[in-house]
Structure formats: C-alpha cells, structure tokens
C-alpha cells in the first residue's frame, strides 16, 4: 500500500476567462504536514475546493490511497476521509457545539432517532482531546473565534479523517491559541493523519511542515521536503522573481499633512488609533487578518460610527456619519471584498465606473451617456482595463480587471485621500503589477494613499511608512529604510522575540 493518503495527478480547472489550476500534481503522506504555499490567487483555494468536492476538476485524477475517486459532492469527499477547516469558520450559530461537530453524520439509535447522549458524550471526549474548556451544549454563537476553530478541528476528529485540510487556521488566533493548535497538529500527525496546511506565515510553515508544495498562477512551481528550501527561496518561488525587483519604489516628494486621525475608538473593534497622512505619501497598514485594520478604514469612510476621537482633513474637522459625507469630503475607499463590496457585477463597466461620480454626468435632469463614456474610456485606458467593450458586464471580466474598474470608480470621484484595502487580493500577477504601478502613480500625482495589505512584500515595496496593528491597536510604526520583515511580522504577531 502506498504511503500516500491522497494524490492529485495532472489536475486542471478553468472558469470562464480564468485558468485557476493547470496540470497540478501533489501527494500527501500519512503522518506528514504538507504546506501549500502561494500568493493570493495562485490556486490554493481551488485545490481546497476540489479536495472537498465543491468543484470537480476539468481534467486529471484524484486518488485516495490507490483508488481513483471522483468527488461529485462534499459528501463524497467527506466519506473518503477528508475534512477541511476553513479560513473563516463556516458553521451554525444557532445550533449547539455537539450538533456542529456532528452535522451530516450524527449518531443515531436503532430507531433512527439522533442519539443525543452518545453524541454529547463523544463530543465531550473530543473536546477534551483538544483541551476545549466549553461544554458540547453551548450554542456556537456564544463562542469566540478561536473556540469556533476548535469546534471545526473537533469536527474533523469526530470523523476520524485521514486527511485534514487547514486553510489559514491561525489567521484569527492569538499567540497562545496558536501554540495550542500546533500541539494538536503534532498529535494528529502522530496518529498517522495527513495534514495539508495553508498559511502565509513563514515561521509557522518552517516550524510545522515536513514538505511543501508551491503554486504560482495556477501551476505548481516547486515541491519537496521543507528542509530543502530557505525562506528566501520559497518567496522567490511564490513571486517568480526576487522581492526587491517587484516594486520599483518611486521617488516622491512628500507634502503637507492631509489627514489627521486622533484617538479614534470604537466599542469593540479598535481603540486609540492616531496617525497622520501627508500628500504624496503611501501609508501602509500591516497586521494579521482580523487585527482591526479594515474596521478602522470603514469607520474613516463613515460606514460605522466611532465612540470617540477626531478626524481632520486639510485642517478641517470632519464628522464620520455616512459614506456620502466621506466621499464629499474627499475620502475614497476601495474595499477588501471586491465581489460583495466593490463591484456591481451585473452592471456594465461604464455604469460601475460612473457609479460614485454619477452627478458629474447629469445634464439638466438626465444622464448623458456620452459624457459617461468619455470618463470611462479615459480612466479605463489609464488603468489598462482589458475588455471587449465598455458596455460589457463586470461579471465577464477577470478578477484583476474587475479590480481596476473598482479603482477607476473611486478615482472618478476625485478624492484627496484614497484608502486601498487589500487591493491585489486574489488577482492575477499581470493585473497586480499594473495596480502596484498605479498606486505609485497616484501618490506621485499628490494623492494621499492608505494601503492596507497582508502581503509583506507588497507593503514593504510600496509604503513610505508602515503602521502595524494587533488586536485593534497600533502597536508599532516603521519608516522606510529602518525596517525589516522580521521586525514587522514580530510586531504583528506579538512574538516575544520582537525588538
């Protein structure tokens, strides 16, 4: 019998206009942690979805042990012994912990009724194995994010899964919680299970993994034992070229202060946030997912209201009560979640580009299509939007081009401050380069830019200053030239070795 619990052979998957995976093979060994690395959009989540039966591959083969399998539904994958723990816990708030653990495979008595006693006892035993301090009767909505993660892990254990996929399981966890998780992973390994571990954090990868598989643009660009690579080698595999050359930092004269934020606080999400932003400056916000960065930006944009603190724009104090007012004051916000918050997929490129600035195209009472088209054409060319025609639905464009349209929408509003929240998340390398170059161009033209990013190379390549956030507070500030990747990451994760 082969030592491999699961293998993929030459798997490819395409979506209209996007090649998500091309000819990828990988094999996962029992008792090993395999790290799946790659930038956002490299194809990691497509692999997870294929392994969990959400997508079926266009070509290629899945083998469990040595038998060829097709996963037509999540149930097939589950019965083949595969369990996944997702980036954001996706479970049932209104149900109890025990039900969440056993949903889809609850133990039943001979009468076909759910055996609650057995289910609770088993859940309690499993929870004990992961040292969870809550009862199986607790409703899920009463748990913290970390505790919900434990429930998901317990769910995988309940099934005695031979392959456990962990998709950025540490993103929302504190240091201690991460240590607990690693202890559990070691235990799972010792029990002979295979683990596919997806993470952006190199320290975790090198601490935990036995082997790695690296993806770039949907293709496998490297694999092998983790001991055979260094961090630098892994980064260059992921990015495709050495990091310094990716972002030619422009020399921009930084002008007077545009935006001053003082003691901005919200009840549960962030506290005592103070910073200022100058003309021509690119200010980076780095931190782990869930550190409160997006929440601050949404507050600056008027989507939520602060409980205290002041915001001054060009010397004038502004009230943050609604997006309309923030837009009128000159703040633009390109949100993180393009599909839900940024793009209106069923409207055309033209209608998206002019959505915020529509008042500029009103003649008398009516919209002037030609004026809209002129604005779209000029911004579209500037951002190098690739499309067949300007009336094309946004849904038909690639992710990168959609993102360019969303940025164009915000530039059309002539902002003084533009906030970019993970602007290159999940877009292809070509579009990514275009967006990066464009961010530099914006600063050069005198805009003040806030760049929220979880990608260290991106933020170190573009920003003049970096503010690091952890658990809702700014914990460190770094200036260009006096920073190191290690110092920034340590500040964000709260590692003890932080300077």
């Amino acid at each position: 019998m082969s030592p491999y619990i699961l293998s993929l052979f030459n798997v490819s998957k395409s979506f209209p206009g996007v090649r998500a995976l091309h000819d990828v093979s990988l094999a996962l060994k029992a008792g090993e942690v395999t790290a799946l690395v790659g930038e956002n959009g490299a194809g990691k989540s497509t692999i997870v979805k294929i392994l969990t039966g959400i997508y079926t591959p266009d070509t290629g083969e899945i083998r469990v042990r040595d038998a060829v399998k097709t996963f037509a539904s999540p149930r097939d994958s589950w019965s083949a012994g595969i369990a996944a723990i997702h980036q954001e816990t996706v479970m049932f708030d209104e149900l109890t912990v025990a039900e969440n653990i056993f949903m889809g495979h609850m133990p039943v008595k001979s009468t076909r009724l759910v055996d609650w006693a057995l289910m609770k006892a088993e859940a309690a035993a499993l929870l004990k194995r992961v040292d969870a301090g809550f009862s199986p009767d607790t409703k899920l909505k009463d748990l913290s994010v970390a505790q919900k993660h434990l429930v998901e892990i317990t769910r995988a254990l309940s099934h005695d899964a031979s392959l456990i996929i962990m998709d950025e399981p540490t993103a929302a966890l504190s240091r201690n919680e991460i240590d607990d998780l690693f202890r559990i992973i070691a235990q799972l390994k010792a029990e002979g299970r295979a683990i596919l571990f997806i993470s952006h954090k190199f320290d975790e990868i090198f601490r935990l993994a036995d082997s790695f598989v690296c993806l770039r643009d949907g293709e496998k660009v490297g694999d092998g034992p983790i001991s055979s690579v260094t961090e630098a080698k892994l980064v260059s595999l992921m990015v495709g070229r050495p990091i310094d050359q990716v972002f030619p930092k422009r020399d921009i004269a930084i002008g007077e202060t545009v935006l001053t934020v003082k003691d901005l606080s919200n009840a549960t999400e962030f506290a005592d946030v103070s910073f200022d932003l100058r003309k021509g400056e690119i200010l980076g916000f780095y931190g782990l997912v869930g550190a409160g960065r997006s929440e601050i930006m949404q507050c600056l944009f008027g989507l939520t209201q602060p409980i205290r603190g002041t915001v001054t724009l060009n010397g004038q104090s502004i009230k943050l009560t609604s997006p309309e007012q923030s837009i009128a004051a000159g703040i633009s916000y390109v949100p993180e979640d393009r599909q839900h918050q940024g793009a209106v997929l069923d409207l055309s490129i033209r209608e998206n580009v002019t959505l915020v600035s529509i008042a500029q195209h009103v003649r008398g009472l009516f919209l002037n299509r030609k004026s809209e088209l002129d604005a779209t054409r000029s911004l579209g060319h500037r951002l190098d939007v690739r499309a067949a025609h300007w009336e094309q639905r946004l849904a038909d464009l690639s992710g990168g081009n959609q993102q360019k349209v969303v940025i164009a929408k915000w530039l059309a509003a002539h902002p003084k401050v533009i906030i970019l929240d993970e602007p290159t998340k999940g877009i292809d390398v070509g579009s990514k380069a275009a967006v990066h170059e464009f961010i530099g161009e914006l600063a050069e033209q005198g805009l003040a830019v806030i760049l929220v990013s979880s990608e260290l190379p991106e933020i170190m390549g573009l920003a003049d200053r970096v503010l690091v956030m952890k658990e809702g507070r700014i914990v460190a500030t770094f200036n260009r030239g006096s920073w190191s990747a290690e110092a920034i990451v340590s500040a964000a994760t709260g590692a003890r070795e932080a300077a």
Partner: protein
Amino acid sequence: MSNATQRTEVLDREPFRWSNLFLRWEFILALLLIGVMVMGTVISKYFLDIWTLSDATFNFSEKAIIALPMALLILTREIDLSVAAIIALASLAMGLCAGLGYGPWALAAIGLVVGLACGVFNGLLVTKIGLPSIVVTIGTMSLFRGLAQVVLGDQAITTYPAGFSTLGQGYLIKWPPIAWSFALFLILAAIFAVALHRTAFGRRLYAIGNNPTAAKFSGIPVEKYKLVLFSLTGLMAGLAAFLLTSRIGSTRSNIALGWELDIITMVILGGVSIAGGVGTVGGVVLAVFILGFATLALSLINVPGIVISVLMGLLLIVSIAVPIMIRRVMGFRGV
C-alpha cells in the same frame, strides 16, 4: 501608466447582433402581446374594437399604476404586499370625508395623503428598524384592511359628491377613446421609464438591486432610496384608490381584495427579477397589456374570472421558469 505596454482596443459598445435582440425579454413579451391580440381577434368578433379595448383599460389601469412603483421596489429586492389594503384604507378615508361634505378634489387629495402615509409607515419599519419587507407588509396588509373593517364592518359607503365619478369613469379624449385612468397610467409609465433609465436616481436603483452592499460602499444612501420607493408605492396606491372609488362609487372593506397578487404578477411577468437588479419599465408595460387584453379575450368568451386567475397564476410561474430553463439548455452557468 503613461508608458504602459501595448493596450487592448476596447470598443465603445457591443457590436450589434440580432440574437441579442431576440433574446431580450421585452422582445419575447412583444411577441406574446401580438399573440394575445391575434388570439383575441380569432376567438371573439367583439375583441378588435376600439370601444371594447378602451373599456378593458378601465379594468387594469388602476392596478398598472401601482405596478410601476412596485417594479422599482422589487428591483431593489423589496416587496409591498399591503398595496391593496392601502387602497381599502384610502378609499375609507375618502368615503368618510365625503360624508363630511368635502368636494371631489379634496377627496382625491385625501386619498393620496392617506396612501402616502401608509407607504411612509411601511418604509420606516423596513428601513429604520431593518425588518424584512415581506413580514412588515403582511402585517400592515392585515392592519390597514383590518382598520377599514373595524370602521365599515359589512357596510358600504356609497354617497359621493356629484362630479366625483368623472375621473374614474370618464374619458380624457373622446376619440380615440382614452380613459382618464388609462391616460394617467401612460403618463406615469413614461415618467417612471425616464426616471429609471435616464436619471442618476434610476442608475442607483439598479446598483442597489444588484449589490446592496457595494451600493452602500459607493456612497448611495440605500435606506433613504428604499424609503422613497415605499412612499411612492403608497402614493400610487392612494391614486389607484381614488380612481377605483370614483369608478365604482362605493367603498367596502373588501375593496380591491387580492389585487397585490395581480400587481406582482404584472411586475414579474414584465421581467423584473425577485432577486433584484433586473427589469425595465417597458417590460412591465408590455406585461400589463398582455395580462389586460388576455383577460378581456377570455371574458369575452365567458371564461369565469376565477379560471382566468388560474391561468394568471400559471403564467407567473411559467414566466419565471422558462428563462431559467432556456439558460440551462443554452448552457449558461450561474455563479
């Protein structure tokens, strides 16, 4: 990117293709309307007569007037099931005031104000408290008609001032005969069409319907827009209440009972998607004519009203099912 690499040529608009025209829902509706007219002419010799057709407009114009704002509501993922109950309450208010000796124009104003107030009430509950519109309007549907029932019981108000019936029963133009209510519908349809398809207001409605979160993130005051639409729906229900009361000259608590169904059928057959973001005023107007004239043709050959409602119910289902099936057969995939 001043020095960017080679750019792709992007056309200003999609090259014209006949197949795109043929696949438009409005085109299919137009064919259906022609079909209805031909069928009507074939099955009844009375059908294709200017007076017959003009008479038929009395029966659908009031509903059609409400279908216009309802289309905008459904376009933005909301719904108002209380419109027929608003008619009952507005009609009651007019009846009571008629008893106090108010003249026809004052009564019209009262009908409009009561309708508007009901619409604002719905809108506030949905937008300020954030309740689902389907539950809110099921509640107000009972409340509004219930209030009419409390006052009227099983009685009717039938005394209206002289001249009150002019607008509901009369004609704006004698030849060709165009009824006041029908003329109002046509004018309002034109206004709604322009507002939806040619103004910033309309563009924002589409954005809200397609993606309310992105609309909000684009600085569109989504809740305010929805409040306006609920108010507008109430106002149009008030107008319809005035026209209907004026036409039939009486107010009972069961006036316009079940109309919400006919109105929503008009809107959905017109191609407005209940999932939001899709639909045109032109489609709704075509659907109004299809339903109105199909009803006329069937009643001319003595098909009972309730049987017609079976057909209308099935038509509603078919009009949603067919596009879904076409899409499946043609292999388009939803994401």
